[in-house]
Protein backbone atom coordinates (compact mmCIF):
# COMPACT_ATOMS: atom_id res chain seq x y z
CA UNK A 1 0.00 0.00 0.00
CA UNK A 2 2.77 2.44 0.57
CA UNK A 3 5.09 3.90 -1.91
CA UNK A 4 8.81 3.29 -1.35
CA UNK A 5 10.40 6.11 0.56
CA UNK A 6 13.09 6.64 -2.04
CA UNK A 7 10.61 8.06 -4.53
CA UNK A 8 9.54 10.71 -2.08
CA UNK A 9 13.12 11.54 -1.33
CA UNK A 10 14.04 11.91 -4.96
CA UNK A 11 11.03 14.10 -5.48
CA UNK A 12 12.09 16.22 -2.52
CA UNK A 13 15.58 16.47 -3.92
CA UNK A 14 14.24 17.62 -7.25
CA UNK A 15 12.00 20.18 -5.60
CA UNK A 16 14.93 21.43 -3.56
CA UNK A 17 17.22 21.84 -6.54
CA UNK A 18 14.57 23.64 -8.50
CA UNK A 19 14.15 26.00 -5.60
CA UNK A 20 17.91 26.51 -5.37
CA UNK A 21 18.16 27.16 -9.07
CA UNK A 22 15.44 29.73 -8.89
CA UNK A 23 17.13 31.47 -5.99
CA UNK A 24 20.33 31.77 -7.95
CA UNK A 25 18.76 32.91 -11.19
CA UNK A 26 15.88 35.21 -10.38
CA UNK A 27 16.46 38.82 -9.45
CA UNK A 28 13.04 39.77 -8.12
CA UNK A 29 13.30 39.66 -4.35
CA UNK A 30 9.83 38.25 -3.82
CA UNK A 31 10.33 35.44 -6.30
CA UNK A 32 13.61 34.63 -4.54
CA UNK A 33 11.66 34.38 -1.33
CA UNK A 34 9.19 32.01 -2.92
CA UNK A 35 12.04 29.81 -4.04
CA UNK A 36 13.16 29.65 -0.44
CA UNK A 37 9.72 28.46 0.45
CA UNK A 38 10.06 25.72 -2.16
CA UNK A 39 13.25 24.54 -0.54
CA UNK A 40 11.63 24.52 2.87
CA UNK A 41 8.83 22.42 1.51
CA UNK A 42 11.26 19.96 0.05
CA UNK A 43 12.84 19.59 3.47
CA UNK A 44 9.46 19.13 5.09
CA UNK A 45 8.61 16.40 2.62
CA UNK A 46 11.84 14.60 3.42
CA UNK A 47 11.20 14.80 7.13
CA UNK A 48 7.73 13.37 6.84
CA UNK A 49 9.02 10.60 4.62
CA UNK A 50 11.63 9.66 7.18
CA UNK A 51 9.06 9.84 9.93
CA UNK A 52 7.03 7.25 8.05
CA UNK A 53 10.02 5.08 7.18
CA UNK A 54 11.31 4.97 10.73
CA UNK A 55 7.98 4.98 12.48
CA UNK A 56 9.08 7.98 14.50
CA UNK A 57 6.76 10.90 15.27
CA UNK A 58 9.81 13.12 15.69
CA UNK A 59 9.94 13.85 12.01
CA UNK A 60 6.49 15.28 11.99
CA UNK A 61 7.24 17.32 15.08
CA UNK A 62 10.13 18.87 13.22
CA UNK A 63 7.89 19.74 10.30
CA UNK A 64 5.49 21.35 12.75
CA UNK A 65 8.19 23.63 14.04
CA UNK A 66 9.54 24.31 10.59
CA UNK A 67 6.16 25.58 9.55
CA UNK A 68 6.02 27.94 12.50
CA UNK A 69 9.49 29.26 11.95
CA UNK A 70 8.94 29.61 8.22
CA UNK A 71 5.94 31.73 8.89
CA UNK A 72 7.84 33.97 11.25
CA UNK A 73 10.71 34.21 8.83
CA UNK A 74 8.47 35.22 5.97
CA UNK A 75 6.90 37.92 8.10
CA UNK A 76 10.16 39.46 9.09
CA UNK A 77 11.70 39.01 5.68
CA UNK A 78 8.88 40.68 3.88
CA UNK A 79 8.97 43.47 6.42
CA UNK A 80 12.58 44.07 5.51
CA UNK A 81 11.79 43.88 1.82
CA UNK A 82 9.10 46.45 2.27
CA UNK A 83 11.39 48.68 4.27
CA UNK A 84 14.14 48.57 1.70
CA UNK A 85 12.25 48.57 -1.52
CA UNK A 86 9.44 50.91 -0.51
CA UNK A 87 10.45 53.62 -2.92
CA UNK A 88 12.10 51.59 -5.60
CA UNK A 89 10.92 51.26 -9.11
CA UNK A 90 12.13 47.68 -9.41
CA UNK A 91 12.63 45.46 -6.38
CA UNK A 92 15.80 43.82 -7.59
CA UNK A 93 18.31 42.06 -5.40
CA UNK A 94 21.08 43.29 -7.64
CA UNK A 95 20.68 46.88 -6.48
CA UNK A 96 22.05 46.11 -3.05
CA UNK A 97 25.74 45.85 -3.82
CA UNK A 98 27.23 48.59 -1.65
CA UNK A 99 29.16 45.98 0.30
CA UNK A 100 31.28 45.39 -2.79
CA UNK A 101 34.91 44.89 -1.77
Amino acid at each position, binding site marked *: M*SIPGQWYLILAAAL*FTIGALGLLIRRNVL*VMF*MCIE*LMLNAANLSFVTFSRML*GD*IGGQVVVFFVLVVAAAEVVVGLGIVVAIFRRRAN*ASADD*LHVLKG
Partner: protein
Amino acid sequence: MLGAVHPTIPDSLTFAVSAAVILSGAIGVIVSRNAVHAALSLVATLFGVAVLFIEEQADFLAVVQIIVYAGAIVVLFLFVIMFLGVDRRENVADEPLRGQRPMALLLVAIALGGVVALGVSAHWATGARAVAGSTTAGHHPNVYVLGKSVFTTYLFAFEATAALLVIAVVGAVVLARRPRMDEAAGLTGDEPVADEPDGDPADPVAESGAGDGSPTHEEVSR
Protein backbone atom coordinates in the same frame (compact mmCIF):
# COMPACT_ATOMS: atom_id res chain seq x y z
CA MET B 1 5.24 1.38 7.44
CA LEU B 2 7.47 -0.67 5.31
CA GLY B 3 5.28 -3.64 5.09
CA ALA B 4 4.14 -3.86 1.51
CA VAL B 5 6.68 -4.34 -1.23
CA HIS B 6 4.60 -3.27 -4.18
CA PRO B 7 2.67 -0.02 -4.02
CA THR B 8 -0.99 -0.21 -5.00
CA ILE B 9 -2.35 1.43 -8.07
CA PRO B 10 -4.28 4.21 -6.32
CA ASP B 11 -1.28 5.12 -4.31
CA SER B 12 1.00 5.23 -7.28
CA LEU B 13 -1.46 7.28 -9.23
CA THR B 14 -1.86 9.72 -6.39
CA PHE B 15 1.86 10.02 -6.09
CA ALA B 16 2.37 10.53 -9.77
CA VAL B 17 -0.23 13.25 -10.08
CA SER B 18 0.96 15.02 -6.96
CA ALA B 19 4.54 14.85 -8.13
CA ALA B 20 3.61 16.32 -11.47
CA VAL B 21 1.73 19.15 -9.80
CA ILE B 22 4.59 19.85 -7.46
CA LEU B 23 7.23 19.96 -10.12
CA SER B 24 5.24 21.99 -12.56
CA GLY B 25 4.40 24.46 -9.85
CA ALA B 26 8.02 24.73 -8.88
CA ILE B 27 9.12 25.31 -12.42
CA GLY B 28 6.37 27.82 -12.77
CA VAL B 29 7.70 29.75 -9.79
CA ILE B 30 11.16 30.04 -11.20
CA VAL B 31 10.11 30.80 -14.73
CA SER B 32 7.21 33.27 -14.38
CA ARG B 33 7.93 36.82 -15.26
CA ASN B 34 5.00 38.14 -13.31
CA ALA B 35 5.32 37.83 -9.55
CA VAL B 36 1.63 37.07 -9.10
CA HIS B 37 1.90 34.15 -11.46
CA ALA B 38 4.81 32.90 -9.45
CA ALA B 39 2.79 33.11 -6.24
CA LEU B 40 -0.01 31.12 -7.78
CA SER B 41 2.41 28.47 -8.96
CA LEU B 42 3.70 28.31 -5.43
CA VAL B 43 0.19 27.61 -4.23
CA ALA B 44 -0.04 24.71 -6.60
CA THR B 45 3.17 23.27 -5.26
CA LEU B 46 2.01 23.64 -1.69
CA PHE B 47 -1.20 21.84 -2.43
CA GLY B 48 0.69 19.01 -4.04
CA VAL B 49 2.88 18.68 -1.00
CA ALA B 50 -0.18 18.62 1.25
CA VAL B 51 -1.60 15.75 -0.74
CA LEU B 52 1.62 13.85 -0.30
CA PHE B 53 1.48 14.54 3.44
CA ILE B 54 -1.91 12.86 3.57
CA GLU B 55 -0.54 10.03 1.52
CA GLU B 56 2.11 9.57 4.20
CA GLN B 57 -0.44 9.58 7.02
CA ALA B 58 0.66 12.98 8.33
CA ASP B 59 -2.91 14.30 8.33
CA PHE B 60 -2.48 17.13 10.78
CA LEU B 61 0.50 18.47 8.92
CA ALA B 62 -1.33 18.42 5.63
CA VAL B 63 -4.10 20.54 7.03
CA VAL B 64 -1.74 22.92 8.73
CA GLN B 65 0.20 23.19 5.50
CA ILE B 66 -2.88 24.36 3.66
CA ILE B 67 -4.06 26.70 6.34
CA VAL B 68 -0.73 28.29 7.26
CA TYR B 69 1.39 28.05 4.15
CA ALA B 70 -1.04 28.36 1.32
CA GLY B 71 -3.53 30.33 3.32
CA ALA B 72 -1.47 32.80 5.22
CA ILE B 73 2.03 32.95 3.84
CA VAL B 74 1.18 33.10 0.18
CA VAL B 75 -1.48 35.69 0.90
CA LEU B 76 1.16 37.73 2.67
CA PHE B 77 3.32 37.41 -0.40
CA LEU B 78 0.53 38.68 -2.54
CA PHE B 79 -0.05 41.64 -0.25
CA VAL B 80 3.56 42.67 -0.58
CA ILE B 81 3.52 42.17 -4.32
CA MET B 82 0.60 44.48 -4.54
CA PHE B 83 2.31 46.97 -2.28
CA LEU B 84 5.47 47.10 -4.32
CA GLY B 85 3.86 47.17 -7.75
CA VAL B 86 1.88 44.30 -9.21
CA ASP B 87 2.49 44.83 -12.83
CA ARG B 88 6.21 45.02 -12.86
CA ARG B 89 7.85 42.50 -15.03
CA GLU B 90 11.30 41.22 -14.52
CA ASN B 91 13.35 40.54 -17.57
CA VAL B 92 14.13 36.87 -17.02
CA ALA B 93 16.12 36.36 -20.15
CA ASP B 94 18.74 38.92 -19.21
CA GLU B 95 21.44 38.07 -16.69
CA PRO B 96 23.70 40.93 -15.65
CA LEU B 97 26.09 38.86 -13.51
CA ARG B 98 28.66 37.06 -15.58
CA GLY B 99 28.83 33.32 -15.21
CA GLN B 100 25.97 33.15 -12.78
CA ARG B 101 23.65 31.00 -14.90
CA PRO B 102 26.12 28.38 -16.07
CA MET B 103 27.61 28.03 -12.61
CA ALA B 104 24.17 27.79 -11.05
CA LEU B 105 23.06 25.08 -13.47
CA LEU B 106 26.24 23.15 -12.96
CA LEU B 107 26.09 23.24 -9.20
CA VAL B 108 22.47 22.29 -8.88
CA ALA B 109 23.01 19.50 -11.37
CA ILE B 110 25.85 18.18 -9.26
CA ALA B 111 23.75 18.48 -6.12
CA LEU B 112 20.78 16.73 -7.64
CA GLY B 113 22.85 14.04 -9.20
CA GLY B 114 24.64 13.45 -5.96
CA VAL B 115 21.49 13.18 -3.90
CA VAL B 116 19.86 10.89 -6.40
CA ALA B 117 22.90 8.69 -6.48
CA LEU B 118 22.90 8.56 -2.73
CA GLY B 119 19.24 7.86 -2.59
CA VAL B 120 19.53 4.96 -4.96
CA SER B 121 22.59 3.32 -3.60
CA ALA B 122 22.72 4.06 0.10
CA HIS B 123 20.92 2.38 2.97
CA TRP B 124 18.64 4.88 4.58
CA ALA B 125 16.66 3.29 7.30
CA THR B 126 18.81 2.16 10.13
CA GLY B 127 16.06 0.34 11.98
CA ALA B 128 16.69 2.33 15.11
CA ARG B 129 14.02 2.50 17.73
CA ALA B 130 11.66 5.39 17.72
CA VAL B 131 12.91 8.24 19.86
CA ALA B 132 9.99 10.53 20.05
CA GLY B 133 7.37 7.96 20.01
CA SER B 134 6.00 5.64 17.40
CA THR B 135 3.59 6.87 14.80
CA THR B 136 1.35 3.88 14.93
CA ALA B 137 1.60 2.38 18.37
CA GLY B 138 -1.76 2.24 20.09
CA HIS B 139 -3.73 3.09 16.94
CA HIS B 140 -4.17 6.63 18.07
CA PRO B 141 -5.06 9.30 15.56
CA ASN B 142 -2.14 11.23 14.13
CA VAL B 143 -3.17 14.43 15.85
CA TYR B 144 -3.14 12.69 19.19
CA VAL B 145 0.31 11.27 18.74
CA LEU B 146 1.70 14.51 17.39
CA GLY B 147 0.14 16.63 20.12
CA LYS B 148 1.35 14.30 22.83
CA SER B 149 4.87 14.53 21.53
CA VAL B 150 4.87 18.28 21.11
CA PHE B 151 3.40 19.03 24.51
CA THR B 152 5.50 16.64 26.49
CA THR B 153 8.81 15.80 24.88
CA TYR B 154 9.27 18.99 22.92
CA LEU B 155 7.47 21.41 25.20
CA PHE B 156 10.38 23.79 25.51
CA ALA B 157 10.75 24.11 21.76
CA PHE B 158 7.05 24.78 21.52
CA GLU B 159 7.17 27.60 24.01
CA ALA B 160 10.23 29.00 22.28
CA THR B 161 8.50 29.13 18.95
CA ALA B 162 5.61 30.89 20.60
CA ALA B 163 7.99 33.55 21.79
CA LEU B 164 9.54 33.64 18.34
CA LEU B 165 6.22 34.40 16.76
CA VAL B 166 5.63 37.30 19.09
CA ILE B 167 9.05 38.70 18.36
CA ALA B 168 8.51 38.30 14.65
CA VAL B 169 5.32 40.23 14.76
CA VAL B 170 6.81 43.05 16.76
CA GLY B 171 9.79 43.14 14.47
CA ALA B 172 7.66 43.28 11.38
CA VAL B 173 5.71 46.17 12.75
CA VAL B 174 8.83 48.09 13.63
CA LEU B 175 10.41 47.40 10.28
CA ALA B 176 7.51 48.37 8.20
CA ARG B 177 6.37 51.55 9.82
CA ARG B 178 7.15 54.93 8.35
CA PRO B 179 9.26 57.33 10.37
CA ARG B 180 7.55 60.38 11.82
CA MET B 181 8.56 63.81 10.52
CA ASP B 182 10.56 64.78 13.60
CA GLU B 183 12.77 61.75 13.49
CA ALA B 184 16.01 62.15 11.63
CA ALA B 185 16.00 60.70 8.18
CA GLY B 186 17.98 57.52 7.82
CA LEU B 187 16.66 55.79 10.94
CA THR B 188 15.45 52.21 10.85
CA GLY B 189 16.37 51.73 7.26
CA ASP B 190 13.79 54.01 5.83
CA GLU B 191 16.23 55.20 3.22
CA PRO B 192 17.09 52.72 0.54
CA VAL B 193 20.61 51.43 0.89
CA ALA B 194 21.78 52.01 -2.67
CA ASP B 195 20.32 55.45 -3.15
CA GLU B 196 22.95 57.09 -5.28
CA PRO B 197 22.69 55.30 -8.60
CA ASP B 198 19.02 55.92 -8.68
CA GLY B 199 19.29 59.56 -7.92
CA ASP B 200 16.17 59.42 -5.82
CA PRO B 201 15.99 62.39 -3.48
CA ALA B 202 15.40 61.58 0.17
CA ASP B 203 12.01 63.09 -0.05
CA PRO B 204 9.49 61.66 2.36
CA VAL B 205 6.39 62.20 0.36
CA ALA B 206 7.61 62.68 -3.17
CA GLU B 207 6.87 59.08 -3.94
CA SER B 208 3.37 58.71 -5.11
CA GLY B 209 3.58 55.11 -6.21
CA ALA B 210 1.69 52.10 -4.99
CA GLY B 211 -0.31 53.23 -2.08
CA ASP B 212 1.30 53.58 1.21
CA GLY B 213 -1.53 52.92 3.51
CA SER B 214 0.12 54.48 6.53
CA PRO B 215 -1.54 57.54 8.03
CA THR B 216 -0.28 60.68 6.41
CA HIS B 217 1.20 62.42 9.35
CA GLU B 218 3.17 64.57 7.02
CA GLU B 219 0.17 65.79 5.11
CA VAL B 220 -1.42 66.97 8.31
CA SER B 221 1.55 69.00 9.38
CA ARG B 222 2.26 70.33 5.91
